[in-house]
C-alpha cells in the first residue's frame, strides 16, 4: 500500500525546535560530512592507497547524496559534476584518462577538462593497473586538489547559509524532500538498476561494468554510504533532523516507513559481495520502496498552494 509521508510536514512545525531542520542538518550533518571528506582527501594525498581511496569515496558519497548547496546558491548547482561524473558523461572517460597518463604534457595541461579532475578520473588513474607510477601520483594529487577546492566551496555555501537570514522553512523542507527523492531515484535506477538489469533502460541486461566504481570494486560501499546519509537525516536517534521534524508534525508512521526502507536496503546490500550485481533484485526493490516512500509524500504540501477565490459561480 502506498502511504503518504509527512502529513503536516509543510505546515510551520518547529514550535519546540530552536532551529529549522535544514539549519540543524547543515550544522550537524552536512558541514561535518564535507569536512570529513576534505580530511580524507588530505590523507589520500599523503598516501595513495586503496583504503584511503575507499574512505575518501565513502565520505564524498554522503556529501553528494544530500547535496543542498546548488539550491541554496545557484552558482554551485554544477559542483557535484565537477567532482563526480557518474552517469553524466557521454564520452569514455577511461579511454581519455589512458591518454592523459600516457601523455608527456605537464599535469596541469594534461588535466584540461573538468571531467579529468573528478573522482571517476582519479579511480582510473589509481586502479587501471596494480602499480601507481610517478606520473599517476602527480595526476592523482592534482585531481584531489581540484576536488578539495570544490569541497571547500560547498562548505563555504553551507557555512554562509548559517550566518545569513534563513529562507522560509517551507522552502527549506521542500528542498530537502526534493533532494531525498532525487537521491533515491539515482540510487535505485543508476547505481543499482543499471548494473543489475532492473532499470527500465537495461531491463534483464546485467553488466557489472555499469556499476559506479567497477574498477576499484567500491560500488556497494558507495551505496551503503548513500543509505547512511539518508539514515543520518531520517534516523530519530540522531540530532534534530528531517525525521524528527516530520514526527513533530504528526507523521510518525510515515517516518518509520522510511526508516524501515533504509534499514532493509542496508541489509540487502550487506548480503551482496565483490561488486557483483547479478543477485541485486531485492536491493533494487528495497531502494524502490525507499524512493516511493519519499516521493508519494510530496502531494501533502498542496493544501497551502492552490487557493483561488471562492469556489462559487459568477
Amino acid at each position, binding site marked *: 500500500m*502506498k502511504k*503518504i509521508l509527512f502529513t503536516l510536514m*509543510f505546515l510551520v512545525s518547529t514550535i519546540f525546535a530552536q532551529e529549522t531542520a535544514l539549519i540543524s542538518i547543515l550544522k550537524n550533518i552536512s558541514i561535518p560530512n564535507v569536512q570529513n571528506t576534505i580530511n580524507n582527501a588530505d590523507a589520500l594525498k599523503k598516501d595513495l592507497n586503496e583504503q584511503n581511496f575507499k574512505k575518501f569515496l565513502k565520505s564524498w558519497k554522503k556529501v553528494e547524496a544530500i547535496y543542498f548547496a546548488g*539550491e541554496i546558491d*545557484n552558482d554551485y548547482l554544477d559542483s557535484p559534476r565537477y567532482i563526480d561524473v557518474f552517469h553524466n558523461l557521454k564520452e569514455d572517460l577511461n579511454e581519455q584518462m589512458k591518454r592523459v597518463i600516457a601523455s608527456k604534457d605537464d599535469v596541469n595541461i594534461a588535466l584540461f577538462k573538468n571531467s579529468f579532475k573528478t573522482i571517476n578520473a582519479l579511480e582510473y588513474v589509481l586502479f587501471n593497473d596494480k602499480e601507481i607510477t610517478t606520473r599517476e601520483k602527480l595526476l592523482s594529487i592534482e585531481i584531489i586538489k581540484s576536488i578539495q577546492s570544490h569541497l571547500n566551496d560547498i562548505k563555504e555555501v553551507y557555512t554562509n547559509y548559517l550566518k545569513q537570514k534563513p529562507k522560509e522553512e*517551507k*522552502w527549506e*523542507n*521542500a*528542498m530537502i*524532500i*526534493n533532494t531525498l*527523492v*532525487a537521491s533515491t*531515484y539515482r540510487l535505485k*535506477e543508476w547505481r543499482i538498476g543499471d548494473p543489475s538489469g532492473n532499470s*527500465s533502460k537495461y531491463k534483464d541486461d546485467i553488466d557489472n561494468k555499469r556499476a559506479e566504481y567497477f574498477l576499484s570494486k567500491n560500488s556497494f560501499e558507495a551505496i551503503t554510504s548513500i543509505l547512511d546519509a539518508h539514515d543520518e537525516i531520517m534516523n530519530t536517534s540522531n540530532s534534530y533532523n528531517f525525521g524528527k521534524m516530520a514526527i513533530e508534525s504528526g507523521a510518525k508512521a510515515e517516518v518509520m516507513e522510511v526508516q524501515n526502507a533504509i534499514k532493509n536496503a542496508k541489509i540487502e546490500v550487506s548480503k551482496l559481495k565483490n561488486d557483483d550485481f547479478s543477485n541485486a533484485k531485492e536491493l533494487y526493490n528495497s531502494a524502490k520502496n525507499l*524512493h516511493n516512500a519519499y*516521493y*508519494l509524500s*510530496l*502531494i501533502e*504540501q*498542496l*493544501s*497551502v*498552494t*492552490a*487557493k*483561488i*477565490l*471562492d*469556489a*462559487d*459561480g*459568477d
Partner: protein
Amino acid sequence: MNDLFALEYIINPNKRIFWVYIFTAIAISIIYYYYNSRGKRVILSSKLWLHPSAKLDYYYFFISYFIKVFMLIPIVISAKSIAFLVNKQLYLQFDYYENTYFSYEVVILMYTISLFIVSDFSRYWLHRFLHTIPFLWEFHKVHHSAKVLTPITFYRVHPIENLLFGLRYSLSIGLVTGVFVYFFGAMIDIYSVLGVNIIVFVFSILGSNLRHSHVPFSFGQRIEKWFISPKQHQIHHSRNFFNKNYGGTLALWDRVFGTLKLSKEVKVLKFGLRRNQMNEYKSIFDLVFKPFKLLAVKNIKNIKKGN
C-alpha cells in the same frame, strides 16, 4: 468551528466579500461617481439595498452557507485528492522526472499563472454550460433571478451549481497541481498576497464586488477585450445578453469563443428574468426547490408529448 461561520467571509481574503475588496469597491465607486453623477441616486437609495430581491440575497447567503458546509463540502472530492491521483498516475506511467532546468522562482511563477489561467478557463466553460444546457439552466436561473444586484448576489447560487463549481475547482486545481508536482516535486508554491494567488488578489481589489452592483464601471474598450470589467458582467446579467460575457476574469475566452460584449455596446441594463418567471423566485424555498419542480414539470410534459 470558528471557520464555520458565515461572517468569516468578511475576514477571509479567499472570499469575494473580504473587507479589503469591499473597501476598494467602495473607493472605486466614489471615484466613479465623482466623474459620473448619473445613477448616483440609485446606488445610495434604500430602495436598492432593501429591495425584496436584495433582502432575499442576504437571507439566502446564510442559508446557502450551511447547505454548502454541511451538505456539499463533505461530498465534493478535494483538489488535493485529484492532484494526488494525477501525480501518481504520471509517476506510474512515466516514472520519476527530475527538474534540473527551471529555478524555484520560475516554477512559482509558472504555477501561479497556470492555476489562474486553467481556473479561469474552466470557470468560463462551466458558466457557459450553465446557460446553454437546459437542465443546468434551471439551476443557474436562480442566480439570474436577482432583480437588483448587490455584492451578496454573488452567493445567490443554487446548491447544485455550488456542487458543480466545487467539482470544477477540484478538477482544475488538482490537475494543474498534480502535473506541477510531477515535474517539480515539492518546490511548488504560488506568489500570493494574504494567502491568495496574487493575480486573483489584484483583480479582486480592482472592483470585483462591483460586478454585482449598479455601478457601471467599465475598464474601457481596449482593456475589456482582455479582462472582464464590472460593467461587462452587469451586461451578462441583463435580460437580453445572458449569452454574453461568461468570463470570470479574462475576456479572452469570450473573444475566442464568440461571446464577448463590450460596455460601450450596451446602454440600458435590465436585470432579472422575464416578469412571469420572476414570480417563481420570491422566497428561499423557491430558490432551493423551484428548479427541481420546474424540471419535474418539464419531464412530465415531455413524457406526455412522447405518448
